[in-house]
């Protein structure tokens, strides 16, 4: 029997759930997709490019899942390889050069697990994005539209603001992984989901995200415009606030945003 948290986990993973490219299409105009990391390949699990948000150019990047098996195989089921993270980094540095804000869409169960990913430095690729994002001189907003798992999601979420859709999730690893590693019983994944506080309301309470973005009653896929209209308005007004800051203020706020995490006694 699923509890509320596990229901949300399942919703966040639904194959019918709208993907990054659908969000981009509805929120922005003039989107031009840019490919490749300039070192190894073009990872189709990560998409990105330049687009207009109302009157201003922005860089948009996100993890791309598919709606069919064929498309998901092509997109590695939304688990980027190192070249995906390096494409993301290339586009973020490009955004910085042209003073464009960066908007990221997160929807991944985690970075790709494979021999090639290890040979090409999955750990280094994620680490590099983290340190570069900490110093990126333009505003960064990350939006969790579906799943958010582990370091592979964090590599897109060292941002000034982190938002999440009602049925998004974000956790250190999947509830299945958590249950099997810590309790050696993967069938207890629903208990794990409950304990892990991975839903948007819990993450909002813990200060891991700043905003929750509503989904239509009939479902996200059934009425995506409802969500994207709200999201677009939020992005425009949030960027205005972030762009009013000096670079020093922006980076100091971003530093403090992540500096605060940790619970300990001394």
């Amino acid at each position, binding site marked *: 029997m699923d509890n509320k948290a596990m229901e949300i986990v399942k919703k966040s993973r639904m194959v019918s759930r709208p993907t990054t490219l659908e969000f981009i299409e509805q929120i922005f105009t003039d989107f031009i997709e840019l490919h490749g990391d300039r070192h190894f390949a073009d990872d189709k699990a990560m998409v990105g490019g330049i687009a207009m948000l109302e009157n201003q150019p922005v860089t948009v990047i996100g993890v791309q899942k598919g709606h069919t098996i064929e498309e998901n195989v092509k997109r590695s089921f939304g688990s980027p390889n190192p070249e995906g993270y390096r494409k993301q980094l290339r586009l973020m540095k490009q955004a910085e050069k042209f003073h464009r804000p960066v908007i990221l869409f997160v929807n991944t169960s985690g970075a790709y697990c494979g021999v090639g990913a290890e040979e090409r430095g999955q750990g280094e690729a*994620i680490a590099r994005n983290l340190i570069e994002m900490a110093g990126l001189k333009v505003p960064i907003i990350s939006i969790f539209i579906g799943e958010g798992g582990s370091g592979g999601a964090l590599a897109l979420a060292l941002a000034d603001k982190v938002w999440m859709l009602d049925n998004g999730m974000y956790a250190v690893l999947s509830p299945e992984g958590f249950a099997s590693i810590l309790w050696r019983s993967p069938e207890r994944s629903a208990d794990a989901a409950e304990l892990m506080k991975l839903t948007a309301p819990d993450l909002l309470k813990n200060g*891991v995200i700043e905003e929750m973005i509503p989904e239509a009653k009939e479902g996200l896929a059934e009425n995506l415009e409802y969500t994207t209209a709200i999201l677009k308005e939020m992005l425009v007004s949030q960027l205005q606030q972030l762009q009013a800051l000096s670079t020093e203020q922006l980076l100091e706020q971003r530093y403090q945003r992540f500096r605060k995490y940790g619970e300990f006694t001394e």
Partner: protein
Amino acid sequence: MKLFKKKNYIRINPPEAVSVPMEETPSIPDGLWVKCKHCDKTIYTKEINEYKICPNCGYHFRLTAKERIALICDEGSFEEWDTDMKAKNPMQYPDYDKIIQKAQQKTELNDAVVTGCCKIGGYDTVLAVMDSHFMMASMGSVVGEKITRAIERGTKKKLPVIIFTASGGARMQEGIISLMQMAKTSSALQRHAGAGLLYVSVMTDPTTGGVSASFASLGDIILSEPGATIGFAGRRVIEGTINEKLPDEFQTAEFQLEHGFLDKIVPRTELKNTLIQILKLHCQKEACENG
């Protein structure tokens, strides 16, 4: 045909195949003899000196933070920071306090990292040493906070930072807060790097998961010890995904060197001298006249 009849032996229930937790395997017990995990040879403990290297095959046993500090720092120079910091239970994980207490009793540490400042070959340095004997040196709030503070103090005092990494990854019992430590430590390193200061990462066995995907991989210079396990995803997870066995050298220091993710593999006996050489090469004359 009774002659050939199979004898009925009494069957004592065989012990269930328990997988030994990684942290239990390679440490040296207090006995006269010890078995090398790598070559399986039994070694007389007196043959293993403070470097803890197998005299037969050269395997580097895992060190405690205390042993590492004794090997690396100039004698008596280590000054420890944040000695009393202890974990809370942000996710209300059942019995987390008991798990922590057990690890504390076993290791005589409060958590999985020791930080402070010291002199190495006369050079003032910030030093952080992770200890895999404490819950496989998984990174939770305490590890993240102590490492972040150490880096911040390094930035403030304009000192180089050396981190000996070892970790199974994020401390899952602390949930999402443990993931945030990757962002926190990397942000602190960004500022340290922005101040033009040196950061040397020394990856020791094992450096995996979230630590490999944050500060361990961000050194200006990245060293490792021979044979150390280094990787992001767990070997068994990958084997399960591709459904085949991976070669022994997969995710070793040698593998990482070959693929361009390490600057140098340095045997433990030479590590201090190599670090002194690196510190010397980065020392601005006026800042450290007498070394």
